[in-house]
C-alpha cells in the first residue's frame, strides 16, 4: 500500500512533496485566519531548533514517544492491521510502567529499568489483545475497537491517578514520583534528552532488520500486501501473523508510554499524553511505513510539537494548530500517493483495467481471517 508506492517514487521525495503541500495548505489557512504564516513558521522553527539544547531537550525528547508509537502504527499498518489504538496502548504502558517504577525503589537500575519497559510492553500488549481477539475470533473490525479502547485507556488512567495510585499526599490527581532507579539516565548533561531516545533508535533498527531479513518480516509484508496470496500461495498462517503483529504493535506503543514516564514525567497524571498515539499515524504514514523513516518523521513531528508552544507565545497561533498540520500531512500523503498511482496506471501493460471485480477484494479479506 502506501509505503510501497512511495518506494517507487523514492520515499524521501514523496515525503518532501507531501510536506511542501502541507505547509502551503496550512499557510493558506493561517492567512485566511488573519495570521502571518511566516511569523508562525519562524516562531515554530525557533522553538524547535533555535538552539542545540532546545532541539535536544524539547524536540528529541518529544520525538521519543512519537518514534515508538510511530513504529507501532507502521508495523501494524504494514501487515494490514488498522491499529488506531496506539494512544490507549500508550496509556496502558504508562500506567504499568509507573506502577513498577514507584514500587521499584531499593532495586538497582539494571533491574528496575528493564522491568519498567517490560511491564509497559506487556500492558500495551494486553491493551491490544482485546481488539485482536475481537478481530480474529468475532470478526469485529479493529478500527472501531481500537478507537474505543483509547477512550477506555484514558479514563482508566484518570481513575488510577484519582484512586488507587494517587499520590500519598492525596492533593493532585497524579501518582507519586517513580524511584530514582526507575528514571532513565540523561544522555547529555544539561539537557533533558534521555536514554529512551536510544532505545527508540535501537528498536527502529531492529524492526527494520526484522522486516527486511527475517521470515517473520517477510510474512508480515506478504499478509499486509495480499492476505489471500499470503494464505494461498505463501501458505502463511495469516491469522497467527495478524495476532503476533497486533500484539507487538501494542507492545511498542506501551513501551512508548513507559519510556515517557521513566524518562520525562517521572509520574503519571491525567491527560498525560497530548495525543502521541494519534500523531503516530501521521509519523508512520509520512515515513511510508518504513521503520528507519519513522525515526526521521518522528523527529520532525517532535520538533513541530516542540515548537508549537513558541508559535503560540510569539505569533499568537493556538498550539492545537499543530494537530491540523498533522492531519494535513496525512491527507497530503494520501494525495501524493494517489497522484503517483495515477501516473503509474498509464505504465501498466496489463489490460485488466477494464474488467474490475470488486468482489475479489472482499473475498480476500474473508479468506485471510478464516485461513489456517
Amino acid at each position, binding site marked *: 500500500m502506501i509505503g510501497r508506492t512511495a518506494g517507487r517514487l523514492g520515499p524521501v521525495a514523496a515525503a518532501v512533496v507531501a510536506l511542501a503541500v502541507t505547509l502551503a495548505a496550512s499557510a493558506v489557512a493561517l492567512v485566511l485566519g488573519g495570521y502571518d504564516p511566516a511569523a508562525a513558521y519562524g516562531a515554530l522553527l525557533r522553538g524547535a531548533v533555535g538552539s542545540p539544547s532546545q532541539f535536544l531537550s524539547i524536540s528529541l525528547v518529544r520525538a521519543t514517544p512519537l518514534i515508538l508509537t510511530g513504529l507501532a502504527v507502521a508495523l501494524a499498518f504494514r501487515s494490514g492491521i488498522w491499529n488506531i489504538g496506539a494512544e490507549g496502548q500508550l496509556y496502558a504502558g504508562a500506567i504499568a510502567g509507573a506502577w513498577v517504577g514507584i514500587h521499584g525503589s531499593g532495586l538497582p537500575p539494571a533491574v528496575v529499568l528493564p522491568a519498567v519497559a517490560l511491564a509497559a510492553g506487556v500492558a500495551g500488549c494486553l491493551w491490544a489483545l482485546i481488539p485482536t481477539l475481537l478481530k480474529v475470533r468475532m470478526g469485529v473490525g479493529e478500527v472501531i475497537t481500537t478507537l474505543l479502547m483509547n477512550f477506555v485507556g484514558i479514563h482508566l488512567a484518570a481513575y488510577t491517578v484519582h484512586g488507587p495510585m494517587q499520590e500519598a499526599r492525596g492533593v493532585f490527581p497524579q501518582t507519586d514520583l517513580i524511584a530514582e532507579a526507575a528514571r532513565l539516565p540523561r544522555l547529555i548533561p544539561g539537557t533533558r534528552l534521555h536514554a529512551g531516545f536510544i532505545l527508540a533508535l535501537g528498536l527502529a533498527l531492529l524492526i527494520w532488520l526484522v522486516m527486511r531479513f*527475517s521470515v517473520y518480516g517477510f510474512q508480515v*509484508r*506478504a499478509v499486509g500486501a*495480499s492476505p489471500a496470496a499470503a494464505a494461498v*500461495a505463501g501458505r502463511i498462517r495469516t491469522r497467527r501473523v495478524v495476532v503476533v503483529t497486533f500484539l507487538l504493535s501494542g507492545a511498542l506503543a506501551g513501551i512508548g508510554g513507559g519510556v515517557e514516564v521513566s524518562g520525562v514525567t517521572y509520574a503519571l497524571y491525567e491527560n498525560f499524553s497530548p495525543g502521541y498515539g494519534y500523531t503516530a499515524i501521521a509519523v508512520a504514514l509520512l515515513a511510508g511505513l518504513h521503520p528507519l523513516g519513522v525515526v526521521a518523521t518522528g523527529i520532525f513531528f517532535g520538533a513541530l510539537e516542540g515548537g508549537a508552544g513558541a508559535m503560540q507565545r510569539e505569533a499568537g497561533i493556538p498550539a492545537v494548530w499543530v494537530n491540523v498540520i498533522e492531519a494535513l500531512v496525512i491527507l497530503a500523503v494520501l494525495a501524493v500517493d494517489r497522484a503517483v498511482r495515477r501516473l503509474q496506471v498509464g505504465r501498466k501493460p*496489463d489490460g485488466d483495467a477494464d474488467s474490475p471485480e470488486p468482489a475479489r477484494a472482499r473475498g480476500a479479506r474473508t479468506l485471510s481471517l478464516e*485461513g489456517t
Partner: protein
Amino acid sequence: MCLRFRPIPRVQDDLPVKAEGSGSHRGRSSVQLVDIAKRFGPLVALDGVHLTAVEGEVHAVLGENGAGKTTLMNVLAGMLRPERGRIVIEGSEAHFHTPREAGAAGVGMVHQHFTLVPDMTVLENVALGVRSAGRGFRFPRDRIRRRITDLIHRTGLAADPEAFVRDLTVGGRQRVEILKLLFRDPRILVMDEPTAVLAPQEVSQLFEILRSLAAEGRTVLLIAHKLDEVLAVADRVTVLRDGATVLTAPRQEVDPGVLARAMVGRPLATVERSEEEVEGDSVAQLSGVWVAGARGEASLRGVDLVVRRGGIVGVGGVEGNGQRELALVLSGRLSPDRGTASLPDDSGLIPQDRCHEGVIPEFSLTENMALALHRRPRFRIGPLLRWALIRDETRVAMLRFGVRARGASTLAGTLSGGNQQKLIVSRELSRRPDLLVAENPTRGLDIAATEFVHREIFELRAGPIPNAGRGRAGLLESTRVSGHRPGVVLISTDLDDVLALSDRIFVMVRGKLVEVPPEMRNREGMGSLMLAGGASEGRRGESAP
C-alpha cells in the same frame, strides 16, 4: 469528473413487443465500427478494428484471449472511449461517454463477469438503475413484477422475480442478466463470452434464445473464442487478432480451419493424450470429505479421490459446484469439516485468481518466489531468509520457464498475465511438490501461454521424459531433470482442457465428484453428467418459494 450533474434519460415504461418476424429488418446496418483504436499505456489493445452488423443477425466476434474482443465491446457499450475511429449506430454517429448514454442509444451488454447484486432479489436487480417512476422516489414493485413476468413468458427465460440472486445457479444468474438487459429494451445486445460458465446443454438453450432475439429484429453481438459455438449460432463472423479485424464473412463462407487460421495466424497445435492408466503410488487421498460453504450449505459433499504420482486427474464442471473448495482441501489450504484427507506436506497450487491469490503484484519476482521458498530449510538460516539464494533461484526459474521481465527485482504486477502464470508455475514446481493442483490454469491466457501451461502440466506425467533436449536444460532444480514427479489434479471449467490432458476424468456437480466412464469422455457425455447431477437436487431458488 464523476460529480457532474446530468439529467438522466428515462427508459420507456412499457416494452413494445416486436411482432415482426425475422427477415423484415435484415439488411439495415445497425452497428458500424470504423477503424477503432484504443491503447492502455504502452499496450495497444485495438488498432484498426472494423465491424459492421445488420439488424436481425447474430454476429460473432471471434478471437483468442488478448485479441481485443472485450475492449472493443466495452467501447461500443460506452465503458471505454476510443482514441480513434467512429461508432455509427443505426445510421447516426455516436460518442458515448458512459454506459448510460450507450443504453439510451439502444446498446446493452451482458458482461463476462456478472454484474448482479447478490443480496438483492431478481426483481430488484432487473429494475436497478431504471427510473421508471419519475424522479427516483417510489419503487414501483408491482408494475415491475408484471413487466418481468411478461418478459419471462415471451422469452422463456425461467426466473423467480422474488428469489435472491445469491441463491441462483450460474446459469440462473445469466438468465437474470439477460432479463435485466431485455428490460431496458435494447436494439443491440452485446454478450461477452456468455457460454464460459454454462454446461453444454445450457449453451444450446442460450443459443435458441439469442436466435429468437435476433428474429425480433434485434442485433446480437456474441463474443466468443470457441469455433464450434460460433459456427452453431452466428449469421456472420468477425475475427480479431492483435487488436485488428482480420476477417469478416457470412457463416456459410467459413469453416473451422479458416477461422482458426484467422484467429491464431497458424494452425493449432494439440497435445496428444496417452490412454494408459497410471499405476504410481498414492500421493493424496480424500475420503468422505465434507466442507461447509460460506452460507452454511455444504460445498463439498462426501468427496472420495485418490491421486497417484505421475497421473493427471481432470475435474470438469460448471463453476461454483465446489471446485474451489476441492482445490483448497487437496492443496492443504483448507481443512475438511468431515472426512479424512491424507496429503503431502507441501503441495503446489496454481490458483485461478492469479492477481489476488497467485502473485502479490506489489512484490518483486524474487519476493513472489519467496512465498514458496521461505518454507524450505535450504533458503533460510534459522529465522532469517537467504535472499541471495532466493534471488538466484528466481533467476534460474525465469530462464527455465521463459518469464519475460527486466530482472528478478521487477514488480510482479507489471508482468503480462501469461508471464505471471509462468512465474506461478515455476514457483509451485519449486516447492518440489508431490501434488500439484491447477485451477483453471489457462483462463485468460493467450494461445502461446496456454500451450506452455498445457505442456508443463502434461510433461509432469509418468513415462519417459519427452523432448528432453528442448534446449531448456541447465537447470539447478528442474523437476524434470531430477525425475521428481508429482500427481496432478487439473480443475477446469474448460472441458477441452480436461479432456486433452487427463488420465482420469471426473465431473464436479453440487459438491460431489462423479467419475466419467471412458465411453462418456467427450463434451456431450460430460455435459449430460453435469446436468444429471444437478437435476436430482432441483434448482435452488428458481422454483416458487
